[in-house]
């Protein structure tokens, strides 16, 4: 009788051991799943920028990453070789299903459709950006979206 009782306790003890191991593995798996969801290839609608040079010509650049920097620094995604432009002048970023423009405390400021920018603002198709004296036109292609590279 006592033997059967202790056998039941022994099985419960083994169960406790595996609940410990199993619960640890389950929560780790949940973490992995969450991290995986975050890292899933999010679709970013492509943004096309037309940079107007001084001689009135437009150079067009398309981006599919969720963040695009503008400035005079060669490390910037869009290089604006113009004295009135700061090294890192402004940033375009995609979040909350919108493209946003924000000024990076540049010396000469950033304007959107001739309005001086103070906070991050949502962009729409055909918007005109002015960084210092450099001018850019935004075109948001809704039909040709590109996935960003998966980053784990």
């Amino acid at each position, binding site marked *: 009788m006592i033997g059967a009782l202790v056998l039941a*306790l022994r099985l419960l003890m083994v169960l406790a051991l595996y609940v410990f*191991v199993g619960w640890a593995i389950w929560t780790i798996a949940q973490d992995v799943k969450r991290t995986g969801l975050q890292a899933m290839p999010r679709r970013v609608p492509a943004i096309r920028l037309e940079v107007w040079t001084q001689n009135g010509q437009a150079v067009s650049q398309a981006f599919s990453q969720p963040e695009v920097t503008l400035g005079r620094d060669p490390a910037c995604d869009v290089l604006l070789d113009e004295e009135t432009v700061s090294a890192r002048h402004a940033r375009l970023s995609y979040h909350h299903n919108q493209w946003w423009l924000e000024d990076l405390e540049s010396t000469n400021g950033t304007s959107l459709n001739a309005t001086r920018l103070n906070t991050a603002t949502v962009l729409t198709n055909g918007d005109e950006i002015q960084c210092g004296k450099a001018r850019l036109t935004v075109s948001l292609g809704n039909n040709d979206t590109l996935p960003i590279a998966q980053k784990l």
Partner: protein
Amino acid sequence: MNDQRESRLIALAAVFLFLYSVILTLAPAVREQSLNVAFRLSHWLGFAAWLLLAFLAYRVTSRLLPDRDPYLLPSALFLSGWGLLTIWRLDSGFGLRQALWLGVGVIAFALIAFFLKDLNFLRRYKYILLGTGLALTTLTLFLGTNPTGAGPRLWLGCCGVYLQPSEPLKLLLVVYLAAYLADRLPTSLNFFPLLWPTIFATGIGISLLLVQRDLGTASIFIMLYAVILYLATGRRRVLLAATIGLIVAGLIGYFFIDVVRTRLDVWINPWNDPTGHAYQIVQSLLAIANGGTIGRGPGLGSPSLVPVAHSDFIFSAMAEETGLAGTFGLFAIFGLIFARGLIASLRAKDRFRRLLAAGLTTYLGIQALLIIGGNLRLFPLTGETLPFVAYGGSSLLTAFVALALLLIISNQTDVEPVPLPSPQPYFFLAAALGLGLIAASLTNTWWSVIRSSDLLARTDNARRSIADRYVKRGSLLDRNNQPIDATEGSSGSYKRVYLYPELAPVVGYTHPIFGQAGLEASLDDYLRGLQGNPSSLIWWDHLLYGTPPPGLDVRLSLDLELQQRADQLLGKSTGAIVLLNAQTGEILVMASHPNYDPNKLNEIGASLAKDSTAPLVNRAAQGMYPVGTAAVPFYSTLGEVNAPSTQQLQALFEKLGFYTTPQLSLPVAIAAPRDETANLQVSPLQMALAAASLSNSGMRPAPRIALAVNTSQQGWVILPAQTQPVQIFSADVAAAAALQNSLQNKIYWGWIGSANSTKTPVTWYLGGTLPNWQGTPLAVVVLIEGNNPFTAQYAGQELMRAATKP
């Protein structure tokens, strides 16, 4: 969220340890299968201490390290609690010490978490730290002691507290290597000049350990150095060089250092020397085999049969009591620690932290795998301790310091990890640790499931005689159910009592030291309950108690009254008497003199085997004596011949069964080869079977001594004879031969024979009932070593008279 996960895991560990403690308390009742026992209670102190310390450690981490890894601390606490209770179960004195050391470990853990959050302290003072460690180890050369009083002097001790500096030295080496390599590697292009300081520091450590004969730790140093260097540089050559180095060191050790040679020999083939150098490892494997799938249960195995079970062999103790189910869980917990350690390393914010975390994980991993593998005979045995689990203050303290450092490294949120130039070394390390755990699981399955029953049947498995103390062994009864051997006492102190000791050479004995002999050995399966019981009952009892079910009584054909008479008649003569039922072959009397008292085996056991009068031998069945003129009564069956030819004799002896080994549940001598005639030797039992044929109408009976076994379900079940009777003469021929030797006014025949072919002459007396005897036909053989026809004849005739008395 971290706090919640950590506290939940610690609570689960507490549930496990609580159940372990409850089972340990009840264990004596299960063993003795009665509630009237002394329950074990002292380990609850250990459980309470663990609970308090676990709560303390949890509070410290949740206050000081809010973003730590939530799995490391619960895993470490689980292991240390499991180890603590296992040690307590083995020896409560060691358990108490371990509980105190666990307290010291947790306090050190808290202090490090409080004062050392910024690990740059370690980085800056790496030389001082390593130097201190080396200095302490050097001190053991002059002031070293061993807490047990003997063996390598690896400890520094004062006032009953001992520290083994080689344990923290491993940790300090890891810190030093991580700090040095993290500082130098990115800037330096030249590989070898960079490494000289590390080779120098590691070399000093290894030489110190070699002088101390702490070879296991020295090999761990080599492995740690190689792995950390590989992690830092990504050069596979390092591993290759270290592997070759270890193999060369092993070979040199094999040929020049005795300890290494014994360890390797014992690893390669422990079965050659199971009572000597391989005793520990063989006993460890027996313990693991006894664990089986779900284990015997805490307190219900016999892990203390393995020497130093609380430190080097704690893994086999855990395997015996929790089985494969427990050890797989143990491997999973270690796997969790390794995985979380490596994740902390990969997420670390600078190179020093990354190398340090990986190095600490390697330290825990190598140490755990080496000693688990050593217990399982997967690797040669190194006297290392199982981190967090095994008995030993220095080891426990070091493991908790390593745990604290790992937690500090893992304590960060969303920090960009430092770039990893080559991830292969980390994958390699993870794969190596994982493969090590898988190999350990497979080896463990091999011993505890596949090879389990073979191992447990070994005679050096002391668990069988331990089971005999707790489970009643069956009795041996005579044909009238008078007990010959019985088990007396109560569970826990059962003792075999030999009620008619003069039968000792025949029924033998069962003894924890001297093993088994005679019928006690040959009928052991019935007496032990392993045969004759339903297999479901055997399985159930093994599952519940780890013992066979209560043994079954066996009824023998012996008649105690006649046996007593035969022993009186044989008296002090050296010789044997066999009296059997000539028809059924049932042996009524089997006497062998001189004999011994098996009740006094404890005192006389050692000298018995050396006794020149050979009292252990059952002369009636195992003694071989020249036939001489004892075969003459059978010559008349050949017809009218004066002197039988060799061919005729061979044919006759073949019929009489002199070339046939009798088959019965008793150890017997192997019969002589077929071509032997002039110098033929037979046992008194063979002669009695031959004589029986004359009294049984020419039919040579099949001998029997075990008649029936008393099973619980079917009552007495007959144990049939193992062979068939053989008609060797016609009834008329047999009757004529018997009548030729009939005695005046007697209802039986008799014949005195003698033989002188060996150095001592022997005297035979053959007799049997006559064909016209109405009762049970009987046959008797008396053999006396020496020329003593009077005693032989008197004994034979008296016994026949007593047996045929109405």
